[in-house]
């Protein structure tokens, strides 16, 4: 008994203390992955806030963006041009979704809109593969995947560039939606559609803006993950990791998505390295979900979500 307690509560911490450089490496790795989760989660939060829609297709949007970019590059389009075209495609997609999916379904129940995004999910998946093929593609963004050592800590150049880009992107989005007029309009729309319309907030424009931003976020996420593990179907599963992030951070909070992403990223790396061996490893994939479950029990609204008050 004491042995188990020791292995769970003391051993891992002694290990961390024993080799601080390695701990820093693990933490850095966790922060890097965490930021990318935050980025994907932000896409969810924006759309959920503005339209009350849980966008099941967010993950496939990541895949679709990466496929479009790689597909264009494979056909000899220069990187810069391919990137601009991909951005245009994602913004175009936002217009199309507003016109074809959201507008006809306005004022429907949340579950119906959710079903619509499941449809969108399969459409984008099939359409993307039809256009660009289903084989695994290599995405070379020109940053070498090599490591160097700073103060005894091994640092991967690709991973750090990805982390830095995500951090910048997350910061820009946070400022954009918290500090500007759009932020207030967005919160207004999230609170009460009718009232927002009556004071002159055009719902359509807000929807197009958030879906476009979600599309741009998808491109960035697609490039990061694609460069790491190749552009393939499993990219769309990254979005599933955003779920525990959302549960932790709250579905309506931009800062929540950021902090939640970091907690999940760092938590799963620490868990895998230090506690994983106790149960034979490979806990990285489900650890986040367990944390989210425990969290749901105590704080269903998430760390930063608006408190759920219900009158009976």
């Amino acid at each position, binding site marked *: 008994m004491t042995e188990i307690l020791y292995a769970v509560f003391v051993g891992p911490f002694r290990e961390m203390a024993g080799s601080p450089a390695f701990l820093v490496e693990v933490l850095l790795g966790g922060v890097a992955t965490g930021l990318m989760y935050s980025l994907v989660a932000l896409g969810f939060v924006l759309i959920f806030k503005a339209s009350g829609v849980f966008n099941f297709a967010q993950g496939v949007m990541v895949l679709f963006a990466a496929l479009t970019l790689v597909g264009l590059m494979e056909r000899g389009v220069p990187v810069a041009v391919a990137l601009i075209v991909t951005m245009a495609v994602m913004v175009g997609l936002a217009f199309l979704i507003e016109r074809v999916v959201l507008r006809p379904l306005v004022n429907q129940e949340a579950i119906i809109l959710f079903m619509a995004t499941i449809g969108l999910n399969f459409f984008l998946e099939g359409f993307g593969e039809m256009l660009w093929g289903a084989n695994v593609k290599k995405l070379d963004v020109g940053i070498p995947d090599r490591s160097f050592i700073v103060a005894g800590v091994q640092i991967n150049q690709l991973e750090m560039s990805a982390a830095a880009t995500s951090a910048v992107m997350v910061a820009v989005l946070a400022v954009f939606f918290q500090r500007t007029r759009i932020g207030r309009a967005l919160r*207004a729309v999230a609170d009460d559609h*009718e009232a927002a*319309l009556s*004071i*002159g907030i055009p719902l359509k424009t807000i929807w197009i803006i958030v879906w476009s931003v979600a599309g741009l976020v998808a491109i960035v996420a697609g490039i990061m993950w694609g460069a790491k593990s190749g552009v393939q179907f499993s990219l769309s599963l990254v979005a599933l990791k955003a779920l525990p992030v959302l549960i932790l951070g709250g579905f309506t909070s931009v800062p929540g998505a950021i902090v939640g992403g970091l907690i999940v990223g760092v938590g799963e790396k620490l868990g895998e390295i230090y506690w994983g061996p106790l149960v034979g490893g490979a806990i990285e994939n489900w650890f986040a979900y367990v944390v989210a479950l425990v969290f749901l029990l105590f704080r269903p609204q998430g760390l930063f979500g608006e408190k759920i008050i219900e009158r009976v």
Partner: protein
Amino acid sequence: MSAATAGPLLAVEGVSVRFGALLALSGVSLSIQRGEILAIIGPNGAGKTTLLNVISGFYHPYEGRILFEGRDRTRRSPPDVAELGVARTFQNVALFKGMSVLDNLMTGRLLKMGGHFLLDAIWWGPARRQELANRAFVERIIDFLEIQAIRKTPAGKLPYGLQKRVELGRALAAEPKLLLLDEPMAGMNVEEKEDMSRFILDVNAEFGTTIALIEHDMGVVMDISDRVAVLDYGRKIADGQPEQVRKDAAVLDAYLGAGHD
């Protein structure tokens, strides 16, 4: 006088609204004169809120026209109507419940903030200056409505009467030419009703805002309105000075159900 200043501020001409088989409004014509307080009354289900929704663009009539300042705007969307200078409140209070009172009022001012959404994010200076100027205006409304003490309170946590007052404030923040109030005193006690009546009269007197309101309390209606229009079963059955309307036979019929022979 030019066309924009002559004639009524708003004219509803032969408007009919249909929900499936139900005719909610049939051939209603009504004008709202500049600077007046018009009360729209009628029994439940008479089509009063429908009329307000048509004016503010939430419903579109299948027949008839709506002219604002002499120009046809029958098929405009709610945000477009708001941009023309029409603000409204709702029967069941539609505040942004998660936001503070101050933020609610600032949101009401959104249309008065010029510039472009996207540019704001990139170019900070002008956006900040605007924010300050608008904040000053909103503070005036807060003083006017005597809600200084609840400035930072989330709107959803306020008692009902205060929520109604904040909603009025949000509408005022847009500096509307026409203010539409859907039962501004519903569910209030006598004291709150007196306060609200005073605010409505003051808004009209101080800012010269034209006001159209739906109200059930006849005492209030007779006290504050310049003119009364009566709807019943989707038709306008009377329109005139409060004292006239009070004596009108058709109105008494509609309200008391008397004398159908």
